[in-house]
């Protein structure tokens, strides 16, 4: 199954990062040969954003690098040029397709060169004529002139016009956008297209409906292609602080005003590292009011939802809505570009779970109705725990319900078992019969064992990094987590002796049976597994890959976690 995640704007890009993290951690999308997995399916990430080098794009790129490294460590040797592939998790194309809405076709060399609304509306290509004469009366001069190569400053009325032109250009396979999408490659191929962006922003608010409408109409006209189009809309879940100074009530700033303010605020984070001319431009943007206004976010989100209800919802197979009752407060102000590198928000992880639910094709229930509320009413959205995450289904039955907390616990337990509970230092031929499956594979191939040991260790270190940095309460890493899960997860992945001793004691078998003496716990989830149970898990075929082995161990652990929970709840 092919999946395409279309990240629209900065928020969508952060959700894409969260999705890659969740896939790396082990979140499954389907059941294959009785193993819950995401491997065997593929994911492409498209990014629709004029801000090509935003902090979110850099964070996504770094996350994909780690994912690629993880997959390379776990695969059996085969790997595509840009595809991070292994039997551990989904094949992800690490080359993000940047759909720049400002890269538009040209009739003449002067068309679509000036990167502001006026420049784009004044351009032509093919049969498309300049729309500036018709649209100019609806805009102020400053709206037409402001540079938009770092986003639409949460002004959907600017972004909607640009996105409209861009969507039209996608119909032409030779346009820059058409080439980046290469939609001909998806014809007659079962594909899940999932769009994600904010309802309150500039790029997301206008990009998601425009792209959704474009893909939805293509799907309607080609019913046999087995396409599905879904989207996750993010309501205001975090608010930026006020800019360093306010905007002018009316009129335009003088050059002297701009110079003075650029000098006064030049060393603030949003300005740091910018050339003098860019600092002046940024000052001018603020003075003219081109920045995100926290007070207007809620109203914009409400208008956005009304637009979906009236004009857009029919193009989507499923629409998810994610938000927080009280938005988190960001500490650093930025107006786009690399300085806008917000930490990962727990709401973005929820958005990524919506994508996983959509990719699993589980559906959200009755397609004719709304499905409301995934979280409990007493949820503290500023200090969430993994147990608060909504669950999704990765298969045909309720047996395949995926609880995020159990996934994290299974991966953490797997990390411990593989790195600490296999006697790697001892030649495999000397391993006990309780781990006969692996012994059989390694006993005549000590070099393979040593190589696997090394790669498992490095892969598990990367898994630990994904686990911990996704719920780290450090405000530089994430926002919206309580830190309880972080503290509980740390012993599983740390090498300190007291933690090791404690977990080893829990996975030790009882004297008279193979049953574990204790339970591995995380929040409401627990797994009872002894190392002797774990030793019996091995793929039947001896030519399995490291990813395949890891996935089998994980799936067995996850199944136990769920059973334990059901037993506790019964």
């Amino acid at each position: 199954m092919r999946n395409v995640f279309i990240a629209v704007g900065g928020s969508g890009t952060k959700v894409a990062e969260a999705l890659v993290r969740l896939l790396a951690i082990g979140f499954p999308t389907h059941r294959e040969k009785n193993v819950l997995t995401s491997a065997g399916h593929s994911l492409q990430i498209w990014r629709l954003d004029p801000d090509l080098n935003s902090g979110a794009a850099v964070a996504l790129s770094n996350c994909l690098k780690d994912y690629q490294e993880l997959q390379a460590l776990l695969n059996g040797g085969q790997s595509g040029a840009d595809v991070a592939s292994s039997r551990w998790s989904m094949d992800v194309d690490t080359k993000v397709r940047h759909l720049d809405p400002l890269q538009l076709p040209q009739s003449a060399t002067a068309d679509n060169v000036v990167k502001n609304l006026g420049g784009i509306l004044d351009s032509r290509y093919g049969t498309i004529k300049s729309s500036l004469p018709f649209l100019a009366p609806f805009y102020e001069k400053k709206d037409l002139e402001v540079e938009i190569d770092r986003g639409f400053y949460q002004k959907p009325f600017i972004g909607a016009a640009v996105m409209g032109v861009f969507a039209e250009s996608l119909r032409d396979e030779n346009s820059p956008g058409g080439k980046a999408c290469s939609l001909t490659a998806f014809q007659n191929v079962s594909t899940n297209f999932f769009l994600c962006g904010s309802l309150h922003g500039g790029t997301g608010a206008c990009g998601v409906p425009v792209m959704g409408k474009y893909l939805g109409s293509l799907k309607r006209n080609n019913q046999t292609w087995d396409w599905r189009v879904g989207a996750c809309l993010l309501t205001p879940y975090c608010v930026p602080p006020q800019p360093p100074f306010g905007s002018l009530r009316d009129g335009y700033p003088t050059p002297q005003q701009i110079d003075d303010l650029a000098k006064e605020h030049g060393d603030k984070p949003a300005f740091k590292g910018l050339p003098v001319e860019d600092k002046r431009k940024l000052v001018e943007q603020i003075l003219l009011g081109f920045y995100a206004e926290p007070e207007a976010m809620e109203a914009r989100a409400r208008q956005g939802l009304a637009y979906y209800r009236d004009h857009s919802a029919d193009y989507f197979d499923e629409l998810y809505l994610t938000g927080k009752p009280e938005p988190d407060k960001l500490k650093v102000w930025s107006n786009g570009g690399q300085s806008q590198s917000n930490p990962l928000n727990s709401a973005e992880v929820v958005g990524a779970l919506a994508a996983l639910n959509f990719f699993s094709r589980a559906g959200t229930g009755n397609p004719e109705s709304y499905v409301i509320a995934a979280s409990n009413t007493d949820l503290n959205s500023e200090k969430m725990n993994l147990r608060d995450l909504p669950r999704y289904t990765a298969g045909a039955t309720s047996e395949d319900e995926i609880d995020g907390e159990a996934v994290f616990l299974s991966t953490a337990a797997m990390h411990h078992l593989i790195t600490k509970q296999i006697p790697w230092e001892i030649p495999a031929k000397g391993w006990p019969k309780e781990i006969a499956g692996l012994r059989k594979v390694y006993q005549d191939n000590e070099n393979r064992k040593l190589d696997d040991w090394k790669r498992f260790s490095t892969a598990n270190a990367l898994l630990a990094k994904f686990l911990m940095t996704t719920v780290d309460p450090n405000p530089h890493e994430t926002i919206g987590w309580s830190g309880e899960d972080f503290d509980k997860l740390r012993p599983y992945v740390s090498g300190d002796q007291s933690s090791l001793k404690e977990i080893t004691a829990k996975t030790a078998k009882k004297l008279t049976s193979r049953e574990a003496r204790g339970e591995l716990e995380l929040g409401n989830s627990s797994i009872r597994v002894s190392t002797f149970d774990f030793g019996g898990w091995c793929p039947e075929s001896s030519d399995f890959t490291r990813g395949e082995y890891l996935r089998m161990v994980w799936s067995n652990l996850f199944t136990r976690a769920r059973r334990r929970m059901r037993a506790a709840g019964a």
Partner: protein
Amino acid sequence: MLVLLIQSSSLLNLFVDACDEEGCEDTALNWVIAALVIAVICALTMLAFKWLKKYTAINLVQKAWSRGQTMVLILAGLVPVVIVLLVIWYSTRNFFNYVGVGGLLKGIVFSWLLYVLFMFTGHLVSPWRREIL
């Protein structure tokens, strides 16, 4: 038969310092038998100790014995061999008088060799052979 063969050879003389008096050959034979029995008992004890450790192992790492660990176990078994032999040698008048210090040392070496032989044999004829080869 083996005892008669040993008795008829001058091998026994090696295990006693002074063999001027009548009956010293019996003492030497007893000393050799004592060394043999102690080697067997110690080997069986050490093998039983290993079996118990493996049987009561609570995880895979404890259950897997490396060659190094096995060697340490075998070497550790040399100590009780010496101690038991020393006690028997000192507490038995004939051994003390006729076997002497030289015979004691030779007996210890003989018992050690037998013990090591039994330990290796015990591993080789069991599934533990993988832990020593």
